[in-house]
């Protein structure tokens, strides 16, 4: 199977299957063997990448230039996604620095606040536009967070939907004493907003509504940056722009999750979408000689072979491009990555 590096290479999959190590290995391979200017971004809030790269989380949100990896002299850039840094840059660039203090915006842009995925799309677009990189390798968050990532383009669209924004503007104007236009008012009243808002205030308290409106209007004021990021959505779907790697591992037999992710990402995947099966061990087991007295070892071998065999059969029914990576036995994450990068090189040849 022949591989061509693409401007964006995306790694997705359920947790614990080795996305981050495989993505790092891919980056190392691209930088070392193909001499590409490569940026590796992790948008997984658990940020395993910082352990592998030995980066302090204080540097989250900055692009860090790597000069060596393990014993290798190799250069590439690494970015640990920090939603709060992206949000701050957006608001500063739009000239609304004072809005950074809005407490709802602050909370929403914390790493676990939930705007991580939307802001990641914005950040990715920003990094592409710097024009500094041949390839950007993206390590996405596990499972359904990845789906949020895919959906975040849609969420951005829904957010800036005209009717939806009209309603917010109406409430915002009404709160600030302005007289909203009659047409709009009719629309709003017919959609039952006033009544709803009354109930909502009982539940949420009045201060919330007002802070929330400010947060929404702050995001609205920066909408160009968000809507520009929508272009990315169509780029991700193009074969010439992206390679998709859906990662799963023998160890966890997460076939259902892989299939569900494939289904969720069906609008994005194209011919250059690969299923990466990590931590294969059947070749190692097949070579193993076991004496008749080693009953437990025999059982272990059998269970390992049965599991892997069943998994591969199912995967072959559902995925056209299957890439196998043998399990690596290295304690240190760095060494682990170096071993995996050799496998990426084999796949090219």
């Amino acid at each position, binding site marked *: 199977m022949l591989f061509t590096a693409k401007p964006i290479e995306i790694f997705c999959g359920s947790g614990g299957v080795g996305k981050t190590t495989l993505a790092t290995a891919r980056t190392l391979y691209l930088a070392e063997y193909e001499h590409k200017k490569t940026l590796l971004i992790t948008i997984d809030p658990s940020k395993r990448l910082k352990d592998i790269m030995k980066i302090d989380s204080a540097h989250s949100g900055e692009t860090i230039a790597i000069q060596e990896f393990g014993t290798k002299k190799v250069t590439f850039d690494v970015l640990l996604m920090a939603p709060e840094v992206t949000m701050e840059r957006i608001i500063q660039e739009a000239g609304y620095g004072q809005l950074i203090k809005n407490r709802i915006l602050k909370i*929403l842009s914390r790493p676990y606040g939930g705007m991580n995925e939307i802001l990641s799309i914005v950040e990715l677009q920003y990094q592409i536009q710097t024009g500094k990189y041949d390839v950007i390798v993206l390590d996405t968050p596990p499972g359904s967070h990845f789906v949020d990532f895919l959906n975040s383009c849609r969420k951005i669209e829904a957010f800036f939907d005209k009717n939806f924004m009209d309603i917010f503007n109406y409430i915002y104007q009404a709160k600030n004493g302005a007289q909203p236009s009659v047409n709009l008012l009719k629309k709003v009243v017919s*959609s039952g907003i006033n009544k709803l808002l009354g109930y909502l205030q009982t539940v949420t308290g009045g201060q*919330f509504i007002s802070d929330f409106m400010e947060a929404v209007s702050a995001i609205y004021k920066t909408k160009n940056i968000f809507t520009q990021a929508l272009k990315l959505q169509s780029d991700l779907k193009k074969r010439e722009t992206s390679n998709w790697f859906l990662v799963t591992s023998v160890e966890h037999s997460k076939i259902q999750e892989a299939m569900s992710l494939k289904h969720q990402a069906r609008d994005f995947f194209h011919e250059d979408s690969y299923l990466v099966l990590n931590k294969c061990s059947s070749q190692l087991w097949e070579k193993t000689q076991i004496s008749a007295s080693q009953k437990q070892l025999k059982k*272990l071998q059998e269970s390992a072979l049965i599991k892997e065999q069943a998994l591969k059969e199912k995967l072959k029914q559902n995925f056209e491009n299957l890439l196998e990576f043998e399990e690596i036995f290295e304690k240190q994450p760095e060494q682990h990555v170096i071993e995996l990068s050799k496998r990426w090189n084999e796949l090219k040849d």
Partner: protein
Amino acid sequence: MIKKFYIVTGKGGVGKSLTAHALCLYLKEMGYHPQLVTFRSSGLDQNDEVNKYMHSDEIDYMPLVLAECVENYIASRLNSKIIAKGIIRAPFFRALINMIPGFNYLIYLGQILQTLHDTDDEKMVLVLDSPASGHALTMLESVYNFQSIFQSGIIYDDTTKMLNQLNAEDFCQVNIVTLPSVLAMNEALEFEKQVAEITHLKTKISINNMLSKIPDLTGDLPTFLKKKIQIENEVVETFGDYPSLPHSLETQSENIIKELIPGMENLV
């Protein structure tokens, strides 16, 4: 001391669901009335039913559906099911809820705590098969986030009550399931630290899938296996001795769960 509420979490693929199932069966053997709580969707408009292929007839499941939970909550607070239905159907409200991240988790957690609060059954224990650690943290944080987002009103009062209930002594424990590797252990420890930063909850780390714990695995082992076991031993040496469970030789999940049950006494 058996807690009322166990949150079983850890990074993906460590065996959270298997552990949560085994924990339920263990509690049942001990004479408690456990229920296994699962989340069925992550948003109001999304029909992304979480893949729960694991099923045991011996376990009582409590699947939570977001739309129902939100409706129940609003109905109880505004004393009207009709108004609640109306609110939940309003496009404005749906958009609002989908936009406020973490709100779904607040609602789920609220439903769990309400159930434990309302029950007359002293033996009731809820075991949450929690989404991966990042999500679990979003869930725990959501209570604090929403308390500071709202500052007044019904939700604010309710989050305050939730925190009191959650942080009460011997009420809740977070079980962090992990694997014998450097990355997985680092993540578990980091998660434990993050939980301690935002809550007062007790945490317990346990290591799944230990090759070295397989009974009677003797004789000359193949090189790769020796290396794997050696890495395991080094990890235990580096990180200390946590309760651990053997790698299962079974291939079917029901059988793996059965194997895990005896080890659960160290996890409660």
